[in-house]
C-alpha cells in the first residue's frame, strides 16, 4: 500500500500531498503523523498542498483532523502552497480550515511555525 512520506525538517515535519487520496490513505497519514509527532517530538507540521488542483471537504476534514490531533500533542499546523483556484473554490464551498494557518510556500510556512512555537514558549 502507498504511504505518504513524512520528512523531518528540524523540529518540524513536512508532508507533501500529491496524489488523489482515498479514505485508507488519508487515515493512514493521520495515524503516521500522530506517531511521528510523538516519536520526533515535533513542534509543528507543514502540509504542502501545492500540487493539489482540487481540495474538497474530504481533504478539508483530513487537514482539520491533522491540525486538531497535532494541537493535542502540542504541535502547530501550517498549510502551504494553496493554488489560487483552490482558494477561491474553498471559500465558495464554505470550507473554513479552522485551527490551520496558511502560508505561500514551505519557507514562509517554516518561518510562521518558528514564530508560533516561540510565542507558545513565551506564554
Amino acid at each position, binding site marked *: 500500500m502507498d504511504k505518504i512520506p513524512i520528512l523531518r525538517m528540524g523540529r518540524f515535519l513536512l508532508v507533501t500531498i500529491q496524489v*488523489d487520496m*482515498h*479514505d*485508507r490513505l488519508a487515515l493512514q497519514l493521520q495515524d503516521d503523523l500522530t506517531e511521528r509527532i510523538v516519536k520526533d517530538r515535533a513542534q509543528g507540521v507543514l502540509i504542502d498542498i501545492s500540487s493539489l*488542483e*482540487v*481540495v*474538497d*471537504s*474530504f481533504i*478539508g*476534514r483530513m487537514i482539520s483532523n491533522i491540525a486538531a490531533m497535532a494541537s493535542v500533542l502540542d504541535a502547530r499546523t501550517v498549510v502551504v502552497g494553496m493554488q*489560487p*483556484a*483552490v482558494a*477561491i*473554490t474553498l471559500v*465558495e*464551498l*464554505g*470550507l473554513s480550515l479552522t485551527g490551520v494557518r496558511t502560508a505561500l510556500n514551505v519557507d514562509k510556512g517554516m518561518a510562521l511555525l518558528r514564530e508560533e512555537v516561540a510565542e507558545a514558549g513565551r506564554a
Partner: protein
Amino acid sequence: MAVLESSIHPIHSSEDVVRVRQITRERAVAQGFSLVDQTKIVTAASELARNTLEYGGGGEVTVEVLNDGMRKGVRLTFSDKGPGIVDLDLALKDGYTTGGGLGLGLSGARRLSNEFTIDSKPGEGTRVAITRWR
C-alpha cells in the same frame, strides 16, 4: 439546447470517485472553462460522487456536454438507489451531516454550480444534477 455528448460512469469505489473528477475535468477543459470554473465543477463533482458512494451505497453519474446557443456547459447527474433523503431542507443546510462529514457536500455543490436540482425520497434513491456554464 443541445447535448453534444453523454456518458455514464459507475461510482462504486474511491477509485471511481477519482475517475469522476478526471472525466469532469476533461469535459470542462474541452468546453473551454477557465481554471477557476474547472476547479469549481470538479470540486462539486467530487463532493457529490463521494455522497453517492458513502450515503447512496454506490451509483452512477451521467456526464453531459451542453451547447445552448453561445453558452457552453457541462451537466452532471448523480443517481443512486440508496435509502434516499428524509428531510431535504435539513440535508441542504451547511454543516448538517448524518455521516460524520463536514456537511458541506450538497450545499457546497449547489453554491459551486449555476444550476442545481435534487430529487430524493426515502426508499426511492437520490438524483442530484448540477450544471456549470462557461
